[in-house]
């Protein structure tokens, strides 16, 4: 569900960048990037099977 929401959010940012104001597009872009990083941190919980 969160990935659908992120794709939808990116689509909205693209449309704002193309049709809307620049400051709003950059602000929404920042919000989407932060959401992506948060989603990554939420999913990157499995221990890496590495041996050094």
């Amino acid at each position: 569900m969160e990935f659908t929401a992120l794709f939808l959010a990116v689509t909205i940012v693209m449309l704002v960048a193309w049709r809307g104001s620049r400051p709003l597009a950059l602000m929404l872009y920042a919000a989407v990037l932060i959401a992506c990083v948060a989603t990554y941190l939420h999913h990157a919980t499995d221990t890496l099977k590495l041996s050094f």
Partner: protein
Amino acid sequence: MTSTRAITLNALSLYGLALLLTAAFAAQFALHELPCPLCLLQRILFATLAIGPILNIRFGPRPSHYAASLLAAVAGAVVSTRKVLLHIMPGDAGYGSALLGYHYYTWALLGFIAAIVLLAGLLLFDRQFEDDTTHPTAPSGFAQGAVWLVIGLTVLNVASTLLECGFAACADNPTVYELLKH
């Protein structure tokens, strides 16, 4: 490099991203390989990468627009590296099938690294920023086509991700489209 030439290169980069998103769709539907959560996040970050070029085409080239894409590319490279490391141990078959010897997440990592290098290369040309960008000229049909193509492919990804994950959290190893299950 003039502003006009930079905008053409930005439009070309959008066509490149569109090709990449189309290839991901082709693998998903032709090979019936559903993208995992980290794979979906890589696709999202490829789409996020397109926001900088769209802003450049609309408002004229600015360093902040390139910076936006650079940040998305770095985030994408981190996610791809994580996926590569999950399957790096000898004997691990990896996730999904391989293309020319590399899995899609390895290609994604190479793609994000290439994007970082290309964006840094484009930032070397100062003249593109010297042109008057307060009144940018109307985008060409070539550039407009690139923008709408990438937006259209991102909308298709909204639909396919909704079909795959439904209204719950996406499965770690998805095998069926949740909304098409009987």
